[in-house]
């Protein structure tokens, strides 16, 4: 995998560039929204990629809780960080799309709100990992990840009902999708997924290396002869 990395990186860069070209130039202009709609070629694939990484984090957390495998914990933290990065992209591109098209920066609609809650939960997850020390930190973080995953369906339902009771402007309305647009959509999703997985792999390797260094340092300090003078 290590040797393949540069080649994969170049391929992914090429894929992203091609996807960008398709999104900005090749895809047809929307009748209603004009060219601004092209933001969805970054907004929606980032959202899908975000979900895949949070799903990976959930599975890795459960694996850790059952088996206490530290590699699973490294996967969990890497996936959480990547998920938060893509989540940030979604939260930034969303309002930038909503403003010119629907005239408002934000609305408490179900997708935007649940994305925001997801961001809050996973940022709190990363903060817990940063602020706690000790060998049990992965276990505490995994417990929090499980809580977060259990929470999401409830978040979704609560906002859905809130919306039904208090109708708000709809952002990102549905409607049928032009097949040419769908092709660009999927292409961008595939490109971002590859990019995300490469960065995820780097982060995972970094975490494994960091843990090794920590262990070695701990061992060093134990074996060092203590001078009392």
């Amino acid at each position: 995998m290590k040797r393949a990395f540069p080649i994969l990186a170049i391929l992914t860069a090429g894929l992203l560039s091609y996807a960008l070209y398709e999104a900005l130039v090749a895809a047809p202009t929307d009748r209603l929204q004009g060219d601004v709609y092209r933001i969805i070629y970054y907004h929606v694939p980032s959202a899908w990629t975000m979900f895949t990484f949070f799903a990976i984090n959930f599975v890795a957390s459960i694996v850790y809780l059952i088996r206490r495998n530290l590699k699973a914990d490294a996967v969990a933290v890497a996936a959480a960080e990547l998920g938060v990065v893509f989540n940030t992209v979604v939260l930034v591109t969303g309002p930038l799309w909503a403003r010119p098209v629907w005239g408002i920066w934000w609305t408490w609609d179900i997708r935007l709100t649940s994305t925001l809650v997801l961001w809050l939960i996973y940022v709190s997850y990363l903060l817990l990992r940063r602020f706690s020390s000790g060998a049990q930190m992965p276990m505490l973080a995994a417990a929090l990840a499980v809580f977060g995953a259990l929470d999401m369906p409830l978040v979704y339902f609560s906002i859905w009902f809130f919306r039904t009771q208090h109708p708000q402007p709809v952002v990102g309305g549905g409607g049928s999708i032009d097949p040419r647009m769908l092709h660009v959509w999927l292409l961008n999703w595939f490109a971002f997924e590859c990019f995300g997985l490469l960065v995820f792999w780097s982060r995972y390797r970094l975490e494994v290396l960091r843990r090794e260094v920590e262990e070695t340092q701990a061992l060093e300090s134990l074996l060092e002869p203590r001078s009392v003078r």
Partner: protein
Amino acid sequence: MTGASGLLRATLAKDLRLEWRSKDAINSMLFFALLVVVIFSFSFDPTAEESRRIAGGLVWVAFLFAAVVALNQTWARELRNQVLDAYRVSPAPANSLFLAKALGNFIFVAVLEALMTPLFIVFYNLRAVGPAYQLLIVAVLGTWALVVNGTFFAAISLRTRSREIMLPLLLFPISIPALLAMVEATSSILTGEFSAKFWIVLLVAYDVVFTMASLFLFELVLHAE
């Protein structure tokens, strides 16, 4: 005292007795809630109509902040006196300890809510247009939702730096569906515009899910160093 219920009763009784003597938690909670009530009352004109719309949110913000005060000191006494280590080596089931702590917190926050409610009615000229008895149900379910997760996250926060900051940081995002339900249910009942039934069902679901999750995972958290 042996057995799970024995431990639960003993721990709960001890906490209640200690709190009754010192009244530490209740006093700080009361002060906090009062502060929120007064400051927010500056922000809108408390005519009956308007206050009914907003009061739901204000009431629960005040109770949430007060609950955090109570939750932060949940495990403080245990930590100070190395009681947690004693629990870890004893054969007592961890769940009893958790339930005792959660119930203790629930009682503290419930007492606070009982004390604050007349104040809210007075300050904001509140009168429920919808079925008022449902407010009691919402209060019980909502308080348990905050307290059960809060007690669990308080135990997690024990092993972090900035312990007092960590608890609300972890608690608030996860509690968002419950908070939304509490606020919306209270507003619905006060204004009488909608039925609070869905929100009450959602609160029941939330309480069930997270009580089970906390009971399931508390053993692991207790044994963390």
